[in-house]
């Protein structure tokens, strides 16, 4: 069945709520309104207001309450209206939720989910990709799917996981892409990357909306005779070190592509992993394509300049191929 990325996420949560009465949702405007992006549209009718809870505008309370409920064996799925607002709950996530199992052995099976990402002219407070704030927080699983299939399978895996999972849904993809999603129950394992395009000349390691940018760039580069391999990380914490090393060992040249700012970004961490796992296999410098080191600007020409574009990938790939 062909589903949009949003519908796949929605279906994933719906199915988990149907089969497990300990799963419930909480967040701002998720009930009768169905959420700002309608991910929980119709949920309150099916599951009732006890399991689809409209909360005050209080992100720390949402995360704290989800965590508390998880300690009693519930599996809360908490929505952030935009992932930009996750900063409001940072202390709850970083100091309360993430450290709980390591410090005192209490599992916290909760999912914090919401829309992130640019290309929608949302401006500096509705376009961010704040995943790195949490990649640097041991104890959290950070998930960033790129396709409807992965989005549904990873959502189910996150809800069933015994650990706190932060699930970044790329809002540019919500209704723009469709993909085949099987009718039967399945999960996509957390922490496993996926080769979405095989190629011999160079690898692009990326995730979320940038997978599609990389795929389009690869089509352009194909006409130049450059065969691109694309590794979709799917989960950015924990990272799939083996898959990263394997693709570098195969193509010997690598571009790391992400939307968020370059400095302190995921590319730096991946470059370090390549250094540790596959240094001898490199035939060229590790190339980073990333957002600018600024806030993400509002005006479309500025946003376009800030964010990586297909042309950037094509240009850098040609340069690296020629190295």
């Amino acid at each position: 069945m062909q589903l949009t990325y949003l519908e796949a996420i929605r279906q994933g949560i719906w199915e988990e709520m149907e089969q497990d009465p300990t799963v419930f949702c909480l967040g701002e405007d998720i009930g009768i309104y169905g959420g700002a992006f309608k991910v929980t549209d119709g949920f309150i009718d099916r599951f009732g207001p006890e399991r689809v809870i409209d909360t005050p505008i209080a992100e720390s309370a949402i995360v704290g309450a989800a965590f508390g409920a998880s300690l009693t064996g519930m599996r809360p799925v908490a929505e952030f209206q935009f992932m930009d607002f996750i900063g409001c709950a940072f202390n709850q996530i970083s100091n309360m939720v993430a450290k709980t199992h390591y410090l005192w052995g209490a599992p916290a099976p909760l999912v914090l989910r919401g829309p992130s990402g640019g290309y929608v002219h949302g401006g500096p407070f509705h376009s961010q990709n704040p995943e790195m704030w949490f990649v640097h927080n041991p104890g959290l699983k950070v998930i960033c799917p790129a396709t409807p299939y992965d989005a549904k399978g990873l959502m189910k895996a996150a809800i069933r996981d015994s650990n706190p999972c932060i699930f970044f849904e790329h809002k540019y993809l919500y209704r723009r892409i469709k993909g085949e999603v099987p009718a039967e129950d399945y999960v996509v394992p957390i922490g496993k990357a996926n080769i979405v395009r095989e190629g011999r000349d160079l690898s692009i390691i990326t995730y979320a909306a940038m997978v599609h940018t990389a795929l389009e760039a690869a089509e352009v580069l194909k006409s130049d005779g450059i065969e691109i391999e694309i590794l979709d990380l799917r989960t950015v914490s924990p990272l799939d070190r083996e898959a990263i090393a394997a693709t570098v060992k195969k193509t010997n040249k690598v571009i790391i592509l992400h939307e968020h700012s370059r400095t302190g970004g995921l590319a730096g961490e991946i470059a370090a992993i390549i250094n540790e796992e596959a240094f001898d296999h490199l035939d060229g410098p590790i190339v980073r394509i990333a957002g600018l080191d600024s806030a993400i600007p509002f005006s479309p020409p500025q946003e376009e300049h800030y964010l990586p574009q297909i042309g950037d990938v094509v240009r850098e790939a040609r340069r690296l191929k020629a190295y």
Partner: protein
Amino acid sequence: MSIKKTKSLTKQHSNGRSRNGSPPGAKTLANSDLRTYSIPDYRLEHPDLTVRQAIEKDKDGTERVRYEVGGNLDAPVPPIRDSKYLTKRQAVEIYRYMLLNRKMEVALENLYKQGKVVGGVYFGLGQEACSCASAYALGKDDWFAPMIRNQGALLVRGFGASDTMMQYMAKAGSPTKGRDGTSHFGDIEKRNMVSPISMLGDLIPVLSGVTLGARLQGRNIAALTWIGDGGQSTGVTYEGINFAAVQNLGLVLVVESNLWAYSTPSEMQYRVRDLAERAIGYGMPGVIVDGTDACQVYDAARDAVERAHRGEGPTLIEAKMMRMKGHAIHDAAAYVPKPMFEFWKKRDPIARFENHLVKEKKWLTAKENTELIAEIERVIEAEREIAVNSPMPTPESAEGGVFCEEGCHEIKPKYGMPKEKKGTRAGYKQTEAAVHLK
């Protein structure tokens, strides 16, 4: 250094205004326009002490800013209020926990002086009635999460003194196996305790969430936590209490007004006269008790716990007392005007409860009391032995346990599988709605 002359920096309080919240020159309203709210105050005295910043001059003329205290420092010490609920056995049991609480902290101070403690030691001196009597009001299936001055609550809920001692000594046998110190540990299996973190106020939404989880499983439980007059200034405190109020959750929040937040007096922390008044703003009941009176604390906590069990929602209890030591062992609290210590020392919760039990109620003979104190000393010594003899953790034990791996914990609803409440039985259909951003 002798003080030659003092002058006040401000006319009234350090924040420059009286603490009644009403603006100067408020218009008189017709009676029908006035709303009234009640904040029951169970105290038998209402200390009128105020702290303000003042300039003191040394002998050599150097001017320094100090805190000074005003008000009636010679007010008579109030008696303990008779409890509405406590039986003889229960009252003596609370007294025993309070003694255990204090003796444990004396032992911790000694362990610190012997160089056996890693880091500092935090004390609840003067707050034992508040910690112990409130925790004593909880039922078996209720939850709690202590703040740093509620080490007595851990004893009431069944942890050994050695657990806390081993935490302070960073021992392998400590509840966190050395990974955290102080009262920072928890137990979701037996004793229903959420581990505190050092940031203030964050436990409030968590405890609210615990009661939400239980309610979804068909049980109304109470969840007790404490917050200081300093801690209540944080934003998450507001978020957490408001969430509990809106969702009608069984949160029992004891606001420990202990007058000093590290070195900052409560006058510089908030403007309302009593923090219990905040309850009005949340739309929930608020009461004031004397935090040095175990009977008042117990009665208020029990009423709040029973409200929670009936599913009637949260309660805010303000307990007034004073932190009788510095913030932690390194802090001599030299900033606190000495007469304040003297005033509150006369209101010691243990000495007054002892007098209440032995002389007023005659629920404990002098001999029984002496035996009880000796028994506590023996218990603490035995617990101390356990703690001291626990080894330090191996360096490698820093590794692992970041995630709950396959099979390390079974996740299951603690109070039973939630019964599905049928919604409209609306089936799944795809959403076609407009989105926030194109």
